[in-house]
């Protein structure tokens, strides 16, 4: 099966600044990839390169089997992009913005009209259809821009901060929509976001960029296994663990690390099987254990760990 996205050593600079440095990754069809990183990491440059808006100075890319450097229009015909700035023409109405995009995308007048009305309805903008975008809130603009990105039923969607500026209800709707696009409609989604909880809910895999370099790429649990030994669990002891309790936990074979918390302790064990032994050790010392909950690392944990590792490596390199 053709990969949705494939890049090899993709590189682009602006003057002396390297915006993207040797990006190599693959994205499966129907996958949601969270493209993460601080500002200036190279996320927007990646999206622009994959859509043939920028030209790579080294390396190559394929989107749906097409080369954005030579088949850029065909790529853009099959992708939809929500830019960080909604990029709507404020002097046009909501409906006119959608109709304009539909016409440029080659949709017929009648089909454009039907699709625009359908999307305005779906995004709760039907009552604003004939109002100028100028008076819209950030959330309304974002919803309209998202509708515009979906006008032509793209196979690959690039979403840059799709929920910034949205209220909680609208955020939930958009997150559900993205999940549905991938799960039910087989769309591939590249999600650039700073909202890590949202990325964790949606993404199958994550790619962390830092100063243009890919620092981590994979499923959060795979990356967690590379970053940390074992798994972490929260022990609810009804209050902070006393030193005798911590000693009892440390004495169990397979415990790697233990720290006191306000409710008890957080323990890192080699694998899940060690956890009942820890509980038994505490109960044997008449320590009440109210709960022992394994806590697999979240995408957020992995992201910050990768960031911390990257910064440490940079500091080390600078010191040399």
């Amino acid at each position: 099966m053709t990969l949705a996205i494939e890049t090899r050593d993709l590189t682009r600079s602006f003057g002396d600044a390297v915006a993207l440095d040797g990006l190599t990754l693959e994205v499966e069809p129907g996958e949601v990839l969270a493209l993460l990183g601080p500002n200036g990491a190279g996320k927007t440059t990646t999206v622009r390169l994959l859509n043939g808006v920028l030209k790579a100075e080294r390396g190559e890319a394929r989107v749906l089997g097409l080369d954005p450097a030579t088949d850029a229009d065909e790529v853009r015909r099959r992708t939809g992009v929500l830019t960080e700035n909604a990029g709507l023409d404020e002097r046009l109405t909501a409906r006119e913005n959608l109709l304009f995009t539909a016409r440029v995308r080659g949709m017929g007048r009648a089909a454009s009209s039907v699709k625009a009305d359908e999307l305005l309805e779906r995004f709760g903008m039907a009552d604003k259809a004939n109002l100028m975008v100028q008076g819209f809130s950030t959330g309304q603009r974002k919803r309209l821009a998202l509708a515009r990105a979906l006008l032509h039923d793209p196979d690959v969607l690039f979403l840059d901060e799709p929920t910034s500026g949205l209220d909680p209800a609208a955020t939930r709707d958009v997150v559900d929509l993205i999940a549905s696009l991938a799960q039910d409609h087989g769309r591939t989604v590249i999600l650039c976001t700073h909202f890590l909880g949202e990325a964790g809910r949606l993404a199958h895999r994550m790619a962390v960029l830092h100063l243009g370099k890919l620092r981590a790429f994979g499923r959060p649990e795979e990356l967690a296994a590379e970053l940390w030994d074992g798994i972490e669990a929260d022990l609810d002891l009804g209050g902070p663990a006393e030193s005798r309790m911590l000693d009892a936990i440390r004495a169990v074979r397979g415990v790697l690390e233990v720290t006191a918390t306000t409710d008890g302790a957080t323990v890192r064990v080699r694998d899940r099987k060690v956890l009942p032994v820890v509980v038994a050790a505490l109960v044997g010392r008449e320590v009440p254990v109210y709960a022992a909950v394994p806590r697999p690392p979240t995408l957020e944990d992995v992201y910050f760990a990768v960031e911390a590792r990257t910064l440490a490596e940079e500091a080390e390199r600078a010191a040399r």
Partner: protein
Amino acid sequence: MNWPAIRAVVGKDLLAVRRSKAVSIPMVAVPFVLLVVVPFGLALYARGHSTVDVERLLDTVPHQLAQPILSLPQREQLLVLVNGYLLAPLCLIVPLMVSAVLAADAFAGEKERKTLESLLHLPLADRDLFVAKLLSAFVPAVAISWIGFLCFAITSNAVGWSVLHRIFIPTGNWLVVILWVAPAVAAFGLAVMVRVSARARTTQEANQLGAAVVLPLIFLAVGQTTVLLVVSIGVAFVLGAVLWAGALLLIWRGSRHFTRDQLATRL
């Protein structure tokens, strides 16, 4: 060429410009003043002073201009001189101004309004986008110029009718100026603003750069328009062709810098 997409971009730009008071009001008001109010006032004055001896005035202008005026009855001379010849530059300032303002809005305005990136993500080839943006400025500039000239001709002939009892504008040379030279001037203004807009971040910056650096030189050239009315039609046509060649050369050079990569680099 993807003409449906080009038409969509042009249509969108024209609709947006019509709704922007900051752009549309000067687009209508300035041509109205230059091509209706000023000719009306001067024609009224000339009609009221039809016995004025213009020979001394004609001593200061080229022989080719003076000759046809002096061959007219004295009561017609001032009116024909002013409205039939001396106001000709106004008819070329209009296409120049309109195309320059609209080009700044079409090119630099997209950057300013932060709509350029979403436009670049559409399946529209660089060349098609460039052509669409050129047409967005060129078509209204020529349309406004032609409508403006029609108003100018109607105003001048109506006011002068009681003295001349005939239609004196347009002459054959006037038609060359309006139908051939005016579009070339619009293309020239457009070409200048395409280059300027590539460097400017806002419409205002583009207008300032254009107005301060290049357009005054073109205004000076446009000031010589009267010459086109006294040379033979063939020569006027050739002069227009030279202007077209210069404008097209500038536009072609501008198009080489109009690539998605260069536009996106400056976002």
